[in-house]
């Protein structure tokens, strides 16, 4: 895929985090009580056009409703879907609308409506209309999916706050790209500052499974 690009230095920010790729990405929250994924996802969204944000009712109860003042200057169109079927339908309608900058859909658990066909449809529609689609899974397991990129994102301890050493600093995330089409998978600890993702010192460049090997 990326033959023409020069090979990135090993410690550089991974390619998927350097540009916006209009495709279906699946994002697994490490835990429903961890919304670090939102901080990881939001910088990757183009703010010039509205965002369709679909939430399932169960997800709203468990991990809260989107709160616009905390999202910066994003235009949001919020859909509160009754169940996963409605949520997937709304996402597909949104993905076909090129007036949106992105579609974010949160699904709770492993609903029956979310099968390979549904994800595949989203992926194809997203690539046709060039609207990035993010399928966020809260408390679900990674089974068969048509998503082009699959992330597992957890919050990581924040960086030192130079103004107040007791206060949380710049947020960091532990992002695990465990399946990607056209990109090497990997695991990085990243922070977002002044418009770009940065690797946090001491992480990156680790091979897949290295952590498991070390703990074994």
């Amino acid at each position, binding site marked *: 895929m990326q033959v023409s690009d020069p090979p990135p230095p090993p410690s550089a920010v991974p390619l998927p985090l350097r540009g916006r790729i209009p495709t279906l990405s699946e994002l697994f929250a490490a835990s429903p009580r961890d919304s670090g994924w939102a901080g990881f996802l939001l910088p990757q969204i183009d703010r010039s056009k509205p965002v369709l944000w679909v939430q399932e009712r169960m997800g709203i109860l468990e991990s809260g409703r989107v709160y616009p*003042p905390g999202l910066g200057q994003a235009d949001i169109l919020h859909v*509160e879907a009754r169940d996963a079927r409605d949520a997937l339908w709304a996402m597909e309608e949104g993905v076909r609308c090129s*007036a949106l900058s992105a579609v974010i859909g949160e699904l709770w658990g492993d609903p029956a409506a979310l099968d390979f066909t549904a994800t595949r449809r989203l992926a194809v529609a997203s690539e046709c209309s060039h609207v990035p689609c993010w399928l966020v899974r809260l408390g679900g397991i990674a089974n068969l999916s048509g998503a082009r990129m699959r992330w597992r994102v957890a919050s990581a301890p924040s960086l030192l706050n130079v103004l107040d050493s007791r206060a949380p600093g710049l947020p960091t995330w532990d992002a695990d790209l465990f399946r990607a089409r056209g990109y090497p998978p990997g695991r990085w600890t990243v922070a977002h500052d002044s418009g770009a993702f940065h690797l946090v010192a001491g992480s990156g460049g680790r091979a897949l499974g290295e952590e498991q090997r070390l703990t074994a």
Partner: protein
Amino acid sequence: MPALAVERWAKSSDLPPDAPVVLTVEGTHGPIIHAVTKAAAGRGARRGARLTDARALDPALIAVPADPAGDGALLQRLAKWAQRWSPLVEVDGPDGLRLDVSGVAHLFGGEAALTQDVIDRFAVIGLTARVAIAPTAAAAWALARFPSPRRGEGLVAQLAPLHVSALRLGPDTVRTLERLGLKTIGALAALPRLTLARRFRGAENVIDALDRALGRKPEPLTGLADSPPPRASLRLEEPATHVEAAEQALDRLIPKLVIELEGRHLGARRLSLHGFRVDGSVVSASVATAIASREPKHLARLLGDKAAALDPGFGFDAFALVADWTEGLGAAQESLVEEPSGTRDLARLIDRLSVKLGASAVRKPQPFESYLPERASGWVAAVSSPRFRGEGDQRSRWRGPSVALRAPPPLQMQGRRPSRLLDRPEAIAVIYATPEGLPRRFVWRRAVHDIARVEGPERIAPEWWRERSTARLRDYYRVEDHAGRRYWIFREGLIGDGRGGAPNWYLHGLFG
């Protein structure tokens, strides 16, 4: 409808049709007769008489309480149903409907055929209707209630032999006129106007009533819309009972409506499809759009599912498609090449989502001037209805076209806000070093979070102009646990603030 109350009562009663029944309402001195059946009328019962007087004539009368409110509701429904003949229908008094049929009669094959059609249709649903068509509303009122012996002549000639009470005057005025020997409208009209004007002044102006009946003075229908909403209607040869009828009718009505909208440079914001059933009931389906539209494909797609769900009951015999909320929409060429326009595409997306999931499920943020986090960010339906717009205007926070999703600038925020907020703050158990100090550890949903970093407090005082005096202040803390998960927790109240016991802790938001 001279016998509306009795006929409505008769439909739901078990008594034999020839029972001498009177319907009564409570008056100052006991029950007063409101309506009578034919049998009761034959025994001397009259409308407006006291029940005791009528019982004196015939003790066998059966008195049943009347239901004027129910009659009124029925009349309202009938008025809606009568829109099958004309778009302009007004409820006239407790037992009458007034239709503006100017330019309508030829659709039904002339005035006589229209009259017959109205009588027949009302007869089918079991109501007696007396129908009159006249050049003025007052004359129609008179002729419907007092049949003229001279049918088919000019208006003045038709009205002349009628009793003066046909002018809709008060009972006192009628009595005075009778005492003066002026029994008919003809006799009244023959008098010089000046003498009449001198004798009858104020509210009971006989000249006015006469002029209204003869068309010398305008009498507009109340609720007359300046421009009636764009409307397309379809009458079926015979009732359609199959489920697809409404959908098929829609396919034929939409092009008609679109032509009318185009002619008037309007776009529909809300569309209603009314199905008129043979039994005199009307069912409706309506959809709203986020942007004025008159594109047939889009409108058909929005209304199609709802039309298919209309219950035909005993069968539809007419349909009407009304754009009851429109906005100006000039003739616009989208583009020479097939390039989708952002605003329009977004509006269509909102329409489709709102129609399928419900307008209240598809919303956009609406900032609100408040310091309380849950109140500072409200939501409005993306398809804003007129009611919603009114509310927005009151706060004067809502400007610009309804499609613009960009919100007005929010209140100056003091601290950072989380990206997610729980609808209700959830109570947590907190361990802290000192009562006023920083939290150290908390339990949320049965899991312990050790706090590694904390920032705060950000104090938000209660809005005393909105809340009760017992509302407590909130101290918000931004905390991070050892795993790096960041939360927004607050302590409600202070120790010894005199507004309750020990302060409670809540978790309110999650940071990204």
